[in-house]
């Protein structure tokens, strides 16, 4: 049970993020939901590479050879960088939308239809 705790957390965080994206009408909250999903996926990647009692995978003067996997950490770092760029871009879209529409309500930001 305790071993699976990270994965349960991942599922809960992603579910909360999806809920925010699907049911919240404020565009900023949609961006927050996206950020939550991203954190969930990052947590998933990091917990995949965890080895019980492992140390950071640096070979120089390593006290023991049990190390966590380095690849998922590299993936997570890349994913965090991409996530920051995405969030920044979406929030700047929100600023421009607010300037032109005067609202961030997704029910009212609907000039494109058909």
């Amino acid at each position: 049970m305790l071993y699976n705790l990270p994965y349960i957390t991942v599922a809960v965080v992603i579910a909360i993020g999806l809920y925010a994206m699907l049911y919240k009408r404020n565009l900023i909250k949609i961006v927050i939901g996206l950020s939550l999903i991203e954190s969930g996926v990052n947590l998933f990647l990091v917990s995949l590479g965890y080895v019980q009692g492992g140390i950071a995978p640096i070979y120089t003067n390593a006290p023991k050879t049990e190390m966590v996997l380095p690849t998922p950490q590299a993936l997570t770092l890349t994913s965090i960088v991409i996530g920051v760029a995405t969030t920044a871009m979406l929030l700047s879209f929100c600023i421009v939308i607010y300037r032109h529409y005067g609202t961030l309500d997704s029910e009212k930001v609907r000039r494109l239809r058909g």
Partner: protein
Amino acid sequence: MMWDFLMHNSPALIIAVPLFAAFFTPVIGRFSKKAMYAWVVGAMIFTEFLVLILLYTVYTYGTQIYVFGARPYSMAIPPDSGGIPVRIIFTVDSMSVFMAFIAATVGLAGAIYSVACEKGQSGQEKYYALVLLMIVGMLGMVLTGDMFNFFVFLEINSLASAALVSYRINKGVSVEAAFKYAVVSAIGALMILFAIGILYGEYDALNMAMIASRMQFTTLDKIAMALILVTLAMKCGSIPMHFWVPDGYGKAPGAISAMLVAASQASLYGLFRMCFTVFGLAASHITLGYFLIILGLISMFVGVTMALVQHDIKRLMAYHAVSQTGYMLLGVGVGLATWGTPAFSQYGFAAMEGGIFHIINHAMYKGLLFLTAGAVIYRVGTSDLNKMGGLAHSMKYTTIFFIIGALSIAGIPPFNGYASKLMIYESVYQFNPLLAVIAMIVSILTLASFVKVFHSAFMGPKIYPDVKEVPKSMLAGMAILTFFIILFGIFPQLAITYLVQPAASALANPIGYISRVLGGGP
């Protein structure tokens, strides 16, 4: 010496050249606008040249692999790695280089077209930097043989495209479209990353060939497959995940709409690559094939019926893009459904060839149509078809380009749309006559819709007396795509022998792909 260097390193240089150019564009743009245009177009021409070198290499010597950071560059599995390809590997088979050719050509036409079209806009340095980044994303997606690398390039591509869709703020409407596109593609990319995490956890590998060779097809794999395939089907704009397409294509600047077509097709390539190479050996071909066929049928039919009622010229063309994507899914889907049975050599392979040939044809004529729509909007200032009219009097070349594009998308000989559609009809008819009949009806409806556009925009009395022909660089961008439309229309055998047939055989041969990476050796 120079030639050898270019030939051996072309997969890496195809990514490096536009990436380097993208980050230097704002610096050069600070000093001189003219130098910046020359820099961007020069970088695109050089990329196209490198793609042609790679095309030649792959056609002559077969699938190429390029291992980053390895010496020699073709050593996929280092001796001390325990049989796992640890480095990032670009696996370039005929299908990849075929898609790279499309992306580079449409990107070149788009860059040349933008020079005049975006002349009056502010922030051009950023525009061109993003254009080059978008092209890097497309080229990377099609060349890479690594799952995580695929995700990174997918994200580069979607971020750059979303920013470019919102380039002309247009009273906030473009930003609304871009927000929709960015949210949808970001969540899709995260789902792909989740699926990559699942696959990595199971098979300890990120390389597509390695994952494919170790594939057990457990329940977890099925979840990963569903996440990846649905996301890529969404990114290529097939119905019922098409809602971002009309907004994104419709509100982007003209050149960007044309390049978004190529970007969607890079996702389509990803979909085919996952279906055939990564999951193809383990999953049921019939299920996957019917998944593609049904997606294709719905996209074809609903896309064209939605297009018929549109009044906005670019929104109408965007729905046609959805509808044409259906043809490719149908053709390749029939190939996948019959894969491994005797029917594959009878008609399944021909259907795949038709579907793949349609990819390049669609990129050319839909790109051309979006560029002509951009030209019309550039001169008239509105995208509403009801307010246009009589443009043929003053915009002669644009009208000719539009007629070529419209006849081609409707499948009229001697243009390239006819060549690929005929291949799809003939082969799909043998699979199931009903599918071929629906495909033909869709084609007729497409013609009807474009007759409407032609009539309301170009025919009739002169409404706008002071409209002139568009500047030369825009015409040059359109002419590049028109050249390929006519070339592939009159000599379809040329394209089929050198581009399409090798691409289809490469896609249908995952064992060759896997053994090329894991078998090692040059």
